[in-house]
């Protein structure tokens, strides 16, 4: 079982009272706004959940594993996620209870 956009839209329909179209649109826009902020080079801080940050990685030497040929891996910007203490705690707590 996996949580997807469809389940999130269902929740907004059931709990928030949005209609199906509004719910789907809201979920899509939620993730699009986060993408746009990151695209603009902005950190996204969602208190209680976690932070999305950007890391710039310099160019580094790489190798084609098939041919052994050396090709540089170009400089790139990547997204990293750091879970909040609250989220980490929730995850640890659940697994501790399951085993205890």
């Amino acid at each position, binding site marked *: 079982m996996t949580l997807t956009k469809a389940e999130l839209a269902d*929740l907004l329909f059931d709990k928030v009272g949005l209609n199906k179209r509004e719910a789907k649109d809201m979920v899509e826009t939620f993730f699009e706004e986060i993408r746009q902020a990151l695209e603009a*080079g902005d950190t996204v*801080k*969602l208190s209680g959940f*976690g932070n999305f940050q950007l890391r710039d990685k310099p160019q580094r030497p790489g190798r084609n594993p098939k041919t052994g040929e050396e090709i540089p891996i170009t400089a790139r*910007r990547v997204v990293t996620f750091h879970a909040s203490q609250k989220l980490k705690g*929730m995850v640890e707590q659940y697994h501790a209870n399951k085993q205890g």
Partner: protein
Amino acid sequence: MTKSELIARLAERLAERNSQLVNKDAELAVKTILDAMASSLAKGQRIEIRGFGSFDLNYRPPRVGRNPKSGSSVSVPEKYVPHFKAGKELRERVDLSLSLRDEG
């Protein structure tokens, strides 16, 4: 961008589309989405958002750690930690924004 800024931007988008929804709806929606995502991970259930990314749990085996103050060893039990992997669209858009900026 903080959670309240995200709510404000969502409300702005909704207004642009002549939606009947208001700031309060955007606020409740953001809270509901984030709560659902957190409880999903807390239940050990993964999250998969096409075009954005996926959230999983990574296993950390038990280990012997040290109390940095006293130097005494403490056993740290096994645990799970949340992990995010950016999806193709997010990865490409963020990386492209870097190359566009370098050229400009």
